[in-house]
C-alpha cells in the first residue's frame, strides 16, 4: 500500500490559475453533457496530464456555475452503463459567458506574452 502523500504525482503538473477552472469546465461542456468525472478526465487527458483538476475545487465550481445558471444539471442514465449520473450541460447564458471569458483570457495571455517575450526591436 502506497503511503505517498501526493496521489498520482505527475512531474509536469501545473496548478490551475485562479479563475481559469470555470472557463475550462464551460469549454469542456461545449462538446456535450458530461458528469463530474468525465469533465476532470477530459481536462487531464487533453492537457496530457499537465493540468490536474483538484476535485476539492471541481465540485464546488460545478455547483457555483449551476447556481449562476451557466450550466444546468440533470440525473441521466449513462449510455454505456445502466445507472444514472449527474450530467451537467451548458446553458445559453453559459455559452455567452464562455466566449466572454475566452476573449478575456486571450487578451491576458497576449499581454503576458508581450511582457515575457517582447517582439524583437521593442526591447530597449
Amino acid at each position, binding site marked *: 500500500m502506497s503511503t505517498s502523500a501526493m496521489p*498520482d504525482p505527475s512531474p509536469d503538473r501545473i496548478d490551475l490559475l485562479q479563475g481559469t477552472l470555470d472557463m475550462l469546465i464551460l469549454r469542456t461542456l461545449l462538446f456535450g453533457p458530461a*458528469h463530474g468525472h468525465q469533465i476532470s478526465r477530459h481536462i487531464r487527458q487533453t492537457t496530457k496530464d499537465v493540468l490536474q483538476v483538484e476535485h476539492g475545487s471541481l465540485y464546488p465550481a460545478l*455547483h457555483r456555475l449551476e*447556481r449562476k445558471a451557466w450550466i444546468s444539471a440533470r*440525473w441521466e442514465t449513462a449510455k454505456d452503463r445502466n445507472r444514472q449520473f449527474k450530467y451537467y450541460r451548458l446553458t445559453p447564458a453559459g455559452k455567452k459567458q464562455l466566449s466572454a471569458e475566452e476573449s478575456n483570457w486571450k487578451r491576458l495571455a497576449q499581454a503576458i506574452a508581450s511582457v515575457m517575450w517582447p517582439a524583437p526591436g521593442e526591447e530597449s
Partner: protein
Amino acid sequence: MRRRKREDELERELRDHLELEAEERREAGASAEDARLAALRAFGNVALTKESVRAAWGWTLLEQCAADARDALRALSKQRKFAAAAALTLALGIGASTTIFSVARGVLLHAVDAPRPEELFYVFCSDLPTHPRGFCSPQEARWVRRESKSFSALALTIPVSALVNGGGDPFNADGALVSGEYFEAVGVQPELGRFIAREDDVAGGEPVVVLSHHLWTLRFGSDPGVAGRPIEMNGKRFRVLGVAGPRFGSLSYRGVRTDYWVPAATSDDPTPFVLFGRLRHGVTVAAANWELGALEKRATRELPETSGTSYEVAPATELALGQTPKQLRALAFAVGVLLLIACINVSGLLSTRVTGRRGEISLRLILGASRIRLGCLVFFEALMLSLMGAAGGAAIAFASLKATVALGSSNLPGIDRVRLDGWALLFALAVAVMAAFLGSVVPAAIAWRNGSASNLNWARRGSTHSGLGQAGAVFVALQFAAGLILLTGSAILLNNFIRLVRMPLGFDPDRLLVMEVSIPYGSPPRDSGFRDEILRRLRLLRGVQGAAIAEPGITEAGLHIDIRPPGRSEKEFPRRYAPMTGISPGFFQTMHIPVLEGRDFTVSDARLPVPPIIIDEGAARLFWPNRSAVGMDLMMPAKAGLRPSRIVGVVRTAPIYGVHYGRMRPQIYTTLDPEPGLMQFLVRTVGEHAPTAAKLRQVVREVEPRQPVDSVATLQQRISDQVIPDRFYVYLSLSFSIIAMVVACAGLHGLLHYVVASRKHEIGIRIAVGATAGNLVALLSGFGLRAALAGMAMGLAGSYAATRLLGSLLYAIKPDDAPTFAAAALIFTAVALLTCIAPLRAMLRVDPAACLRCE
C-alpha cells in the same frame, strides 16, 4: 427539505465519482482495494469538498436568518444578566401595551352588540347651542324620519321606566319606547320570540313588550316559555313578544342598561323622541350631517312650531361608551411612552454591547461581512430579546388583564368579555418586532461607524472613545424625559384622586343610610301622603337620629336649571346650570349641613303657591357678593316659564350630588315636588340598635306593599362607588409610570456601569495621581447625571403638554398643578440618585495598582 435532497444528491455525485475513478484504476491493473484507496487519495478531503460545495450553494434568506438567530442567542447566552435586564424591560412594556390593547379592543368591539356598529347613529334636536343632545318633538321626529334619505332605517326612541309586576316582587325597570324601525336598524336576531316590527307600532295596537336578557334571567328565571305571556307594567297589561340577546341593552345613548322595549305608538302620552338609525351603506357621517343641515333649513319653513332646531348626529358607539375612549386613549398614550422607554433601554444596552465588541465587528467587516449582514446581526440580537420580552409580556398581560377586569368591571362596558386572545398575542408579536427594529437602529449605526479596520486595536484596550458616551447620554436623557412625563401624568391623576376622596364634603357621610324609592313616570299617580308616611315611620324607628327626603337625591346628578336673579340680563349673568335638589324639612339637620343664614324649610312651605328656595353660599356669593341673599328672589322654572322664588336660607356648600362635581356649581334647594318621582330617604342612625337595610325595606312594604325599593346602601358606599373609575385609572397609570421610572433608572444604571467599566484605566490613573472622591463623582456625573437632568427638564416641558390630555378626567386639580410637577421631579431625581450609588461605589473601589499592572 430541499436542502436535505441536495445533500443526498451531493453525496451520490461524489460517490459516483469515486467509483468511476476506482473502476478506471482497476482497468489499469490495480487490485480492487488498492484502486479504491487510490481513488480516495486522488480525490483528497471529501468532507472539505462537501463543505466548499455547500458554500457554493450559498444561503437562502431563511437559513441566513436562522444562523443569525443562533448567533444572537449564543452571544446573548454569554451575557445572561444583560439579556435578562433587556428582556424584562421589554416584557413590561409589551405586557402593558398588550393589556391595554386587549381592553381597548374588547371594550370598543363588544360595547355595542350589532353588526357594523359604526353605522349606527343617534340624531338629537337641540334648540340651544349650550344645551346639546336635546329631544325632538314627536312631529319633528316623525318629519325627520320621513324626510331623511341618509338612513336605511331610522327609528324614534326615548328612554322610559316602569313599575313591573310579574316574576316575583314588583320592581322598577328602565326601558325605551321604540318605533317599528328600531330593531331593523340594529340588525340582530332576538334570543327568543320576535322583536317589535313596524306592524306592532300602531296607535291603539296591542300593548307588547320585548324584554332584555338581563331582565329575563333575573326576573323570569330564563323561562323559555315567557314569550306570549302577559306582564303588568305601570298597571297596564303587556304581552311579551320576545327576549333580546345578552348584550343588547348597552345601546342606550345614556350608557345605562335598557331592560325592556315597547312600541312608541302604543304609548298614551305624547313624549319627545330622539332618532336612532343605521346609515345607508356608503353614506358618510359628513354626508348625513350635510343632509340634516339642509333639513334644518326646511324645518324652519315647514314646521313653524319647531323653528330654530339644529340636528346633531352622534355615533351610537361613542355615546354608549361615554368617557371610556378618552380614558383608553390616555392609557394607550401612557403605554406607548412606556414601550418607547423600553425600546430606548434595549437600544442603549445593545449599543453598549456593540461598542464593547468593536474589535469583533471590525474583524467581521475585514473578513468580508457586509454592512447589511452586520445590521442583521444587531437586529437579530434585538429580536431575540424582544421575542423573549413578548413571551414575558404575554404572561404579564394575562395576569394584568385579570386584575384589570376585576378592577374595572363596574364601569367599562364589555370588559367582562376581554380575553388574551390570538389577536392580542399577534399584537404582542408585532410590537416585539417593531421594538426590535426601533431598538437596533442606533446600535447598528454605531457598529457601522465604529467597525472599521483602524478600530481593530481597540478590541484589546479599554478606551475613552466616546462612541457610546454620546449616544448613551442621549438615551438616558430621552428615557428620563419620557419617564418623567408618565410619572407627572399619573401623579396628577393620583393627586386628583386623593383630593377627590379627601374633599371636605360639607356633610357627614358616617352612619347614614340611603334608601332609593322611585315611582316611574306613567305608573299610576301616587299622592305625597305615602312619602310622608314612610318618613314619619322611619323617624320613629329605634336607633334613628333623624331622617329626611331628597329628590332626586344625593350622589345623583340633580336636575340642572338655568338660574338668574329677576330683572338681570343674560349679559350680566351668563347662562349657568345649577343642580337643583328637592328636600324635605330636616334635611340639613340630618345631613349635618349648617344653615348659615335664614332658616330651613317648614312643612307648610311646600304648600305655598310659590314655594321658597334655599341656596348654598356659593350661589349667594355669586349673585349677591356684598349683601345677604336671604329675602332676595331667583328665577325658577315653573309650569309656565320662569317665576321669581324667594330665598329663605343660605347653607354651607356641600357637593351632595357627587364628588365629581366638586364645588364648581352653585346649588339650589327646593321644596319637594307634590308628585313623588325619584326619591331618597336619608336615615341618620345612632347607637347599637341602628336599623338594618332590611328594616328600612320593611317600613316601605308596610306603608305600600306594591312599592319596590330600588336600593339601600350606606352613603360611604355610594361615595366610594362613585370614584371606582378614578381609582381604576389611577392604579393603571401609576403602575405604568413606576415601571417606566424603574426602566429609565435601569438605563442610567447601565450607562454609568459601562462608563466605569470602560474607563477603569483612566480612573485608576486618576486615583493614582491623587484624584479625590469628589473629582471622580464629578467625572461620572459628566456622563449620566447631566444627561438625566437634561432629560428631566425636557420631561417637565413635555409633561406640561401631555397632562393636557388628562384634562377631562380631572375634577379636583388643574392639569398643570405646579406642586405635583415638582413632587414628581423630586421623586424621580431621588430614585435616579439612588441608582447611581452602585456604579459610584464600583468606581471608588477601582484599585489603581491593579489597573496599572494591566497596562
